[in-house]
């Protein structure tokens, strides 16, 4: 099966600009997650979708971040306006069922805000 795909792989933007990250999960995976790793720190949970519904967005840092999952397929994560502290690697993951099913991760998007 095709893996989780993330686009772009790298993005360099200036402070104040907008960036949209995209994630295509594995087909048939209802659960989709966004995680972020800031340089040298832990990978942190951002939010969780089940199909098109947000189940848990308690990890979203602030209202500059907006995630959507159109029709329960691909997901986008928009940062607007970007700040320096938003720099890091953003990972998307998907799974078929409950959390005892392993997550399948994409390669991540490395975001650099200058």
């Amino acid at each position: 099966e095709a893996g989780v795909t993330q686009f772009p792989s790298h993005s360099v933007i200036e402070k104040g600009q907008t960036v949209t990250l995209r994630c295509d999960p594995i087909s048939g995976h209802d659960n989709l997650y966004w995680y972020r790793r800031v340089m040298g720190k832990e990978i942190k949970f951002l939010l969780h979708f089940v199909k098109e519904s947000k189940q848990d967005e308690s990890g979203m840092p602030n209202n500059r971040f907006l995630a959507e999952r159109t029709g329960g397929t691909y997901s986008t994560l928009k940062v607007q306006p970007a700040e320096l502290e938003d720099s890091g690697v953003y990972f998307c993951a998907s799974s078929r069922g409950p959390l005892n099913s392993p997550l399948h991760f994409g390669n991540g998007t490395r975001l650099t805000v200058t």
Partner: protein
Amino acid sequence: AQSVAQPEDQVNVAEGNPLTVKCTYSVSGNPYLFWYVQYPNRGLQFLLKYITGDNLVKGSYGFEAEFNKSQTSFHLKKPSALVSDSALYFCAATGAGSYQLTFGKGTKLSVIP
């Protein structure tokens, strides 16, 4: 709050020797525990998990992990290390009923030929 600790930033081991990467956790209730590996410029790849049952869990590429409830540990082990095992290893945990995985900071494993 959930937490995961990986006390070693880096572990160096000679090829052919046994390796251990340490992990301790704190979650409410019964834990779900995972190990993931990340190779350069790649995503995290699932290695193994503990949900319930036998405390010794076997996973991919010859890795295994031992769940120790009294010590709240879930150390990753392999009897004989390969150079190709060199990568970044992440321990993760959550409690039953939660969909949020909490990760450790990661341990860089270097296997020296």
